[in-house]
């Protein structure tokens, strides 16, 4: 069998620029972190910092792989599907590196790492997510799709929704006091999941994906705001009104509250999609299968 660089070619064996570009980009955060590590740019606790850096990229890759299907519809960009498996496999590789960095940080103490995974719920959850990603990565090849059959394969790979949820919970639970970024990720997760659910449930929704996505952007942002207030109430007994009110304080010194970020990111996607649809309508030849 001749050597076939799968990440760089399409099914017909032609060079696939999108796949090739994504393939290269997936290495960048890892190499960047490795470079920073080697140069001593990661502060006085470099392993900890690298663990965090790689962990956050794992989560981003899981999210990107979850976003492929909605983005494909919204952007009318069917080629995107070709990069989904690659992004998913990258998420697994990063998750594994994340675990290895933790291992190094614990001075290679296998017993401690194992007992910590059992003892700390957030690590158990992360570990289950990692096992899930491993199963998906192991079955990510064409041969495995054939062996399992498309239907069973798809059902297996729906596990990524659960993995995404576990990853967000892990992110929340490892936070000390500041749950700013986990809250944003949770809000975006809600947006992605609601979009899928609505589009799957309603034929009418499928005909107007942009409308659905923008409506759900607002819903998800509102849920983020509410969820944040509930979280602070439950975890720190902060009056909900105070957390809700923080959403209306605009101050250059403060990061916008997570609800606003969720709204901004999801609406930005909708706007880009709308612009692209305008262009495609004028120049349909751009739309390639």
């Amino acid at each position, binding site marked *: 069998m001749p050597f076939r660089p799968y990440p760089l070619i399409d099914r017909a064996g032609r060079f696939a620029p999108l796949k090739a570009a994504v393939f290269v980009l997936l290495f960048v955060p890892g190499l960047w972190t490795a470079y920073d590590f080697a140069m001593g740019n990661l*502060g006085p*606790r470099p392993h900890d910092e690298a663990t965090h850096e790689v962990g956050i990229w794992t989560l981003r890759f899981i999210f990107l792989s979850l976003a492929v299907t909605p983005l494909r519809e919204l952007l009318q960009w069917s080629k995107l599907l070709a990069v989904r498996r690659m992004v998913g496999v990258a998420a697994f590789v990063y998750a594994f590196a994340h675990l290895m960095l933790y291992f190094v940080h614990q001075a290679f103490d296998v017993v401690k790492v194992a007992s910590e995974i059992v003892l700390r719920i957030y690590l158990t959850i992360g570990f289950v997510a990692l096992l899930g990603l491993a199963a998906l990565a192991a079955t990510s090849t064409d041969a495995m799709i054939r062996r399992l059959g498309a239907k069973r394969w798809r059902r297996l790979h729906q596990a990524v929704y659960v993995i995404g949820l576990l990853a967000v919970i892990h992110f929340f639970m490892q936070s000390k006091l500041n749950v700013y970024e986990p809250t944003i990720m949770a809000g975006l997760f809600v947006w992605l999941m609601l979009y899928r659910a609505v589009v799957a449930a309603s034929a009418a929704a499928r005909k107007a994906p942009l409308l659905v996505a923008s409506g759900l952007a607002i819903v998800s942002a509102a849920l983020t705001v509410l969820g944040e207030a509930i979280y602070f109430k439950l975890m720190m007994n902060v009056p909900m009104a105070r957390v809700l009110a923080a959403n209306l304080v605009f101050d250059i010194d403060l990061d916008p509250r997570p609800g606003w970020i969720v709204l901004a*990111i999801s609406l*930005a996607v909708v706007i880009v999609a709308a612009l692209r649809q305008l262009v495609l309508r004028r120049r349909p030849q751009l739309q390639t299968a």
Partner: protein
Amino acid sequence: MNIKRKKGWEIPESQATPETVFRNRRRFLTAGAAGALALGGGAYLAIGQGGDAVAQAQPDPSAGLYPAPRSMRYRLDREVTEEKVSTTYNNFYEFGTSKNIWQAAQKLPIRPWQVKIDGLVAKEMVVDIDDLLKKVQLEERLYRHRCVEAWSMAVPWTGFPMKALVDIAQPTSAAKYVRMETFNRPDVASGMKASFYSWPYIEGLTMAEATNELTLMVTGIYGKPLPKQMGAPIRLVTPWKYGFKCIKSIVRVTFTDERPRSFWEVSQGSEYGFWANVNPRVSHPRWSQASEEIIGTGGKRVPTQLYNGYGDFVASMYTDLEKSGERLWM
């Protein structure tokens, strides 16, 4: 409880301390998010006010007091952490939740600075920091510092025993606790604008703890006045407790018969309590405290010691409390 203190004459092991450059940990979620933020943030930028005056760089009037003579009673079993490392890796939530707040903290004006002493005292008073410094004897002490996040450092603090402050304050016999409070200045400390944390920062000690010989009111480090990110002009250091007990930039000391509820206890009482004594056998709910990473050593990990190795000085304060079911270790 019996533990062995490292002998003063033990030679610290040599550890190469790498030069480190720090960078902001803040990051965008995805490349796409940056654009979205720019869009979403427009209104917010327009409304926001960027008028924080950066504190004037004025010479520290107490600079002449340093370096103070080093006390030989408190020895280290490890190398002193490099100044550049310890002064750029700081938890100071008033200025933000990352460790990289040392620049933001420079906005804090530390003169004039007054400390109010009140509560169960013979006479309430407000002392100016420089007057206070004239009344006490500064000394340098080498202490280990163990953060609850399982990292540690070893630094040369300069300060005076808190006992001296208690003597100045003259608490009545009804006083059982000392409650300490940090400045409340959201105008210069932007982290304090996060309205849902319970500002200002509060910490507390029992009278026995406050007058323990180890308990130090710290005003300097590395033979110089304390830098702002480390809690200038005056902070607490209790080396047998987790670092969050060591309240920074104190403006008020109150003697009371009620146990103070600290910032962390209010925020997350299930993880951070009043006592917070270092104990390698009692885990934080989310991580083991059995070992600690010494910062600036490229990841060197050492076993954590009971009371951070200061049991000979402090363990006796807790023998009765241990039986009473107090959560001494968190």
